């Protein structure tokens, strides 16, 4: 996402009329992508925006203009507030956990060892299954009486004979976060592996000559060099995790007592169970604004930091 530098030669060339024309012609290159996403994503976004400020029946038929009324309703709903808080926990925990696990995993997978390609394939495996399926399988795994998790724990001699993992919000949310981390790891590890392989080996040799232990070269060479990859992994994961629906929906439906509801499940319930498409649209707009704010702030901050280092 970094801006490509204009070469001095390009910059100094005079902007003749023909050149400007040529630049406009170059629009042809990005036009197909803009058209495609504008029709397919732009129209639904427009619909959501429109519904957010309208009074809408459960089938999306507009009955009147509502102004900010829907937003007011959203803010007055304690479950929206609770879901927002839980979304924050969900996003921070999943993204944080993913990054914390993905870094050492990527570092190990970047080592040269026997069976590395098998290990890499296994780590990438969760990617091969859709989130909905993963969630479904995990719901079975953690089932209290028939799930394989308790079966395995019992076989190890642990007292989890029929422990009900999804019975409290805290325990259910923890399980969901762990599953969320598990499914985010493949993408994140891949990004980090890409970053690690781009660090020249001589840097490590230089550090070794400088007397750095393995740990020191990890903390002082590897991690700082991974920073751009870390940034992109964080931004993209935050966007994906914030909007991630199937895990929570399939495992707990947001329950018990809304204890695992996040904004996207809140929106889904409003729209498709309660028939309040307008309220759902308003909440969606808020979600969009939060993510936009986050992305802009984050990219701005990291760019600032990058600039300060120059």
């Amino acid at each position, binding site marked *: 996402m970094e801006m490509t530098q204009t070469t001095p030669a390009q910059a100094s060339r005079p902007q003749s009329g023909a050149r400007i024309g040529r630049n406009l012609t170059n629009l042809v290159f990005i036009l197909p992508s803009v058209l495609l996403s504008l029709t397919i994503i732009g129209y639904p976004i427009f619909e959501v925006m429109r519904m957010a400020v309208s009074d809408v029946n459960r089938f999306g038929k507009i009955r009147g203009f509502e102004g900010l009324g829907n937003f007011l309703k959203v803010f007055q709903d304690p479950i929206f507030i609770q879901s927002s808080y839980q979304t924050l926990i969900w996003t921070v925990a999943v993204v944080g956990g993913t990054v914390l696990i993905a870094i050492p995993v990527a570092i190990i997978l970047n080592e040269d060892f026997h069976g590395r390609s098998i290990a890499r394939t296994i780590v990438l495996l969760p990617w091969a299954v859709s989130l909905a399926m993963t969630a479904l399988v995990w719901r079975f795994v953690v089932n209290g009486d028939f799930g394989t998790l308790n079966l395995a724990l019992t076989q190890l001699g642990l007292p989890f004979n029929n422990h009900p993992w999804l019975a409290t919000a805290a325990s259910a949310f923890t399980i969901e976060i762990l599953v969320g981390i598990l499914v985010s790891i493949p993408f994140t590890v891949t990004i980090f592996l890409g970053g690690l392989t781009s660090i*020249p080996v*001589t*840097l490590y*040799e*230089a*550090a*070794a*000559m*400088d*007397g*750095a*232990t393995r740990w*020191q070269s990890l903390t*002082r*060479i590897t991690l*700082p*060099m991974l*920073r751009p990859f870390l940034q992109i992994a964080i931004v993209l994961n935050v966007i994906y995790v914030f909007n991630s629906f199937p895990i929570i929906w399939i495992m707990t439906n947001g329950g018990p007592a809304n204890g695992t509801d996040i904004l996207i499940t809140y929106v889904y319930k409003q729209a498709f169970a309660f028939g309040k498409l307008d309220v759902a649209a308003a909440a969606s707009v808020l979600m969009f604004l939060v993510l936009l704010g986050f992305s802009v702030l984050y990219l701005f901050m990291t760019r600032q930091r990058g600039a300060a*280092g*120059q």
Partner: protein
Amino acid sequence: MSSIAIRNLTKSYGSVQVLHGIDLDIADEEFVVLVGPSGCGKSTLLRMIAGLEDITAGDLHIDGTRMNDVSPQKRDLAMVFQSYALYPHMTVAENMAFSLSLRGKQKSAIEREVGDAARILHLEDYLDRLPKSLSGGQRQRVAMGRAIVRHPKAFLFDEPLSNLDAKLRTHMRAEIKQLHQSLGATSVYVTHDQIEAMTLADRIVVMNAGRVEQVGTPLELFDRPRTRFVAGFIGAPAMNFFEGKVELNEQGKPHTHIGPSPVALPEGMESQAGAIVTVGLRPQHIPVSAASTDGNARVELVEQTGCETNLLLKLAGIDFTVQTRDRLEVNAGDAVNLEFDSRNMHVFDSNSGQRLN
């Protein structure tokens, strides 16, 4: 500062042996240059000294201590890499201070050391810059500085100047030499450039195909190359060679032929009549004079360097290069006369390549 002793050092990758029993002693404060064509194993040897490559067999001693299984972190050597290997996320000062801060040195001490090094290397104005904003020469200096601040037991250089342009290379070469003179540090320097080797080294180690061909001072190597390989590798333009059969004249003096003309060979050669030898003559050691019409050699190409003139000649089907400081008025196609002086000849056994005189 320290001495380095290498005994019968061997390196294999699987079944492929790349170093075949290297023996070498490097004295304290000595500047030793490893030189040889690419693939000769000189970088591998350096990296084995550094600890970056495992030693397959043999021993490496630094200051009398066996170092084979000591990790590079603990060998207390500094290395300047061909790519400089500067840490891109650290400033110049941080790069130089890195090793000291790893050792937990006091901040004031680090600053002093870095400041000193920066002054020696003229880097004071760049301390807060990141490597990517430096020129090649500046980066090279930072890499040097990173080594200097540590006061290591020895400096290892892995072709440090090969990424610089010619002028800068000459300049940095001089700086390295001066630095060595002022610091007196034991240095091992790898290069494929024989000029660098000649100008920098106290002693040069010429390597070929995983073996040491000869160890000696620059002038020893130039004057008495022990093998045909060394003779051909050291000196520019490269030495001229021609092959011939040893014959003895009535006085029992050895000679051979270039084409029809007899050429006297040096006396006291360990060679019998009938042996096939390779005779080497440096381009500077073949006097040349313009001939009227029937000189014994024909000019193929004239190269002017300003100070010297290089002539590429053909004599009885053999190519010769001759260098002269005289301003000869010759052009391609002209005939010239060459003289072969047996005192300047290097004679090698054509089979073994060993020196015979």
